[in-house]
């Protein structure tokens, strides 16, 4: 894979050229600060834009055009990364040479993408009210859908609880509670702000000629120059002087248990790799201590796992358990953590975790979208090319002492139980 980083016009562009894949992905990103008062605007704006352009005025017209380009896909969404709000428009196109009769589709695909972002259908400078109302309804119904997915819904409630005073509790997909208040004027203003003030960058992965791609970007994807500092890590935290615990009632067969820890070890921290290895040993594999103890030995749960969110410096434990077993499961989680701080850790377990980490890292280079996302984030954080070999070397250097050390930095913050309350315990 060859990486190129340059500017075309005002826009920083990163190329990742490889013949490994049959599709090509173009990702154009608009970056601003993630703010409470613009979450819903920036969540809805990509949907309004992909809902019709001047040349293809309805979502159906766009869908038809993209289908004729062999199922080219254009999607837009907001992400929260650190303190940034990133609106990405991602286009995935099949490389012409793998299609029957080698049709020419790339230029046309670029022009559709360009129209969606830069030439929306406006009436007197405003998006159409019908389109706005329709997209608002669709987003609202999409967000309320989460309620059926008990794990996700419970997770959101848990985040609201643990991060009550932090931006991390908000979802970049949109906030249901305030969506009704969103006005057309706010969307119009946000659009203007996005195309005039946001930091814009473009990342492309696939098998293409550099010159041809330069021309396509110069022709179709130009944005004004804008530069300002963004913190790509989420530094908000709280000093834990009291552990919090809450049980939210819901009439489910299984109870969901969420436990949140903090240690403020983030991507750039020297303990980042030990933390990755620790997490795999603790709960992020079927060989993990949590899985072995809570599912296999204690048989308290069908699923139990841990997740390390490096951007925020927090670690979560999730489990699905029989109602009434929440306290036993919680105690078991703490016991496992204590045993990793002070007890025996075998070198075989350490090697297993390292090989699992290596496997995940290596195979992430089999996915064009994952390569692109990693290259984008690495460029944002370090302004340099990501090196797989360097990451592997650092993960291989992790020792048992390192794992113990990061285990002892974890501070319990919150426990959240979502499910039926046992009647006998209420008395």
């Amino acid at each position, binding site marked *: 894979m060859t990486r190129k980083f340059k500017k075309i016009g005002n826009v920083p562009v990163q190329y990742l050229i490889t013949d*490994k*894949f*049959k*599709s090509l992905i173009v990702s154009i990103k608009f970056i601003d600060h993630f703010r409470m008062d613009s979450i819903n605007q920036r969540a809805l704006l990509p949907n309004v834009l992909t809902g019709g352009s001047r040349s293809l005025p309805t*979502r*159906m017209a766009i*869908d*038809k055009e*993209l*289908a*004729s*380009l*062999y*199922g*080219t896909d254009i999607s837009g969404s907001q992400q929260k990364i650190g303190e940034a709000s990133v609106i990405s428009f991602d286009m*995935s196109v*099949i490389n012409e*040479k*793998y*299609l*029957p009769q*080698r049709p020419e589709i790339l230029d046309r695909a670029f022009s559709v993408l360009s129209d969606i972002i830069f030439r929306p259908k406006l009436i007197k400078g405003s998006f159409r009210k019908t389109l706005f109302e*329709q997209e608002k*309804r*669709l987003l609202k*119904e*999409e967000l*309320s*859908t*989460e*309620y*059926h997915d*008990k794990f996700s819904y419970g997770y959101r409630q848990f985040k609201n609880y643990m991060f009550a005073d932090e931006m991390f509790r908000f979802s970049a997909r949109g906030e249901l509670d305030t969506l009704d208040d969103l006005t057309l004027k706010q969307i119009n203003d946000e659009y203007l702000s996005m195309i005039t003030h946001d930091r814009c960058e473009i990342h492309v992965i696939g098998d293409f000629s550099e010159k041809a791609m330069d021309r396509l970007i110069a022709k179709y994807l130009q944005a004004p120059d804008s530069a300002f500092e963004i913190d790509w890590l989420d530094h908000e935290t709280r000093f834990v002087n009291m552990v919090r615990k809450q049980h939210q009632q*819901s*009439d*489910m*067969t*299984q109870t969901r248990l969420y436990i949140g820890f903090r240690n403020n070890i983030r991507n750039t921290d020297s303990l980042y790799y030990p933390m990755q290895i620790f997490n795999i040993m603790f709960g992020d*594999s*079927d*060989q993990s201590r949590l899985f072995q103890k809570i*599912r296999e030995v204690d*048989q308290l*749960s*069908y*699923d139990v796992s841990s997740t390390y969110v490096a951007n925020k410096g927090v670690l979560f434990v999730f489990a*699905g358990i*029989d109602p009434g077993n929440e306290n036993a499961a919680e105690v078991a989680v703490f016991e496992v953590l204590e045993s990793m701080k002070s007890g025996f850790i075998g070198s*075989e377990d350490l090697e*297993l975790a390292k*090989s*699992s980490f*290596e*496997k995940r890292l*290596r*195979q992430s*280079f*089999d*996915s*064009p979208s994952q390569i692109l996302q990693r290259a984008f984030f690495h460029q944002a954080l370090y302004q340099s090319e990501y090196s797989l070999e360097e990451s592997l070397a650092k993960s291989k250097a992790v020792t048992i002492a390192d794992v113990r050390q990061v285990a002892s930095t974890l501070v319990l913050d919150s426990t959240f139980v979502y499910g039926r309350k046992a009647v006998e315990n209420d008395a």
Partner: protein
Amino acid sequence: MMHKHVHQPMNETVYRHTLNSGMRVEILAKPGFARKAATLLIPFGSIDELVDLGFATDIKNFPQGTAHFLEHMLFENQAKNVTREFALLGASVNAYTTFNRTGVYFSTTNGLEKPLELLFEMLAEVNFDIASVDKERAIIEKEIDMYQDDIEQQLYYDLMRSLYFEHEIANDIAGTRESLALIDSKSLEAAFKTFYRPEMMVLTLTGDIDPQAIVDLLEKQRFLKRKNDIGLPLILHKEEPECVKSDSVTKFVDVANDLVMVGVKLQPRSDLTPWEQQLLELKWFLLLDNLFGKQSANFEQMQKRKLINNTFEVSQTIESSFAHLIFFAETNRPQALSDYLLRSLQDLSGATLDLQDFYRQRKKMIGDFIEIFDSITQANNLMSDYSLRDVNVFELIKAVDMIELDDLLKIKNDIPTKSISIVQYRRKQK
């Protein structure tokens, strides 16, 4: 002899080979990829309850959930912790059960040889002692509990139970607490002997692989040398009427939006070859896309009337013993949506198909197929899906270009106006 074929214009290379034991092996070569994926397929699924073992008098009835229970038992081994052994080789192993098959799969970024040896060792050493069976039963009961909270899955099974009187597709893949109680060491062992036979299995591999080395290694595996004298099992199904069991079911449950699932019961075509059947399924896909997909007038109407949102989904399942279409949506207007879908399905004889849309949708289908080959896992799953039926997926993709609008018009008339069930999940009043 190993058979090699390079499929153009996609430039994908596939090796096919049948081992001495009769097990088929299909290898998709993906040079340059780190991940290697393997799936072993056993043609034993949840609908395979009633089995003729070769003599008309020897008909066995496996309790609901046997295939899934057996899938769990594969990892029970007296001498070693199998998943850990896989992990030590850098491979993560797992398994699944669907209505028509059991799949055991693993992936690794190291070599495939050692985990493949372990996989067949594991099958040669499956342990059916009572304690292990009891332990797995307890785990499966928890798994069933977990699915109780999965509203969409509950809705799907309610629809299946509305469409079908007798067919096993209406039974939960994992079984029920009652049926689990009927499964014991003996019945599991009997099921294992009946279905876990090399001549019935298919192994699909995808990744940067040396095909000859893999085939040589497989020929040496003890499990794959087993010879069986008994004939192949024949799956039986009870007589299923053409009509549906109930037209409509409404339940009040704890949801944020109402849910609607509409099922259309089609007559299964047991007369078709697997190839014809898979091609027919693609035709149904294109037909439904034309009539109800995002580019259709129906979709636009439903959107305009606020009957549907982005959750709207249409799907088709065309099997030799059952066939149906499913429409699903979350909606705030469940009755109006149900009425709309019912009316449009009953008025189909007059409905026209759009030729330009059809050409576009056919192109999209081809593009979507090609994109799958950018993912090792998805490509291997696609191969698995078709290879168990002995259908060559690359030939099938080529055949898409030959489907014409007339093909769709013909099957459109197969949609019955009566055999339709509607299941609604309405918000419980708080």
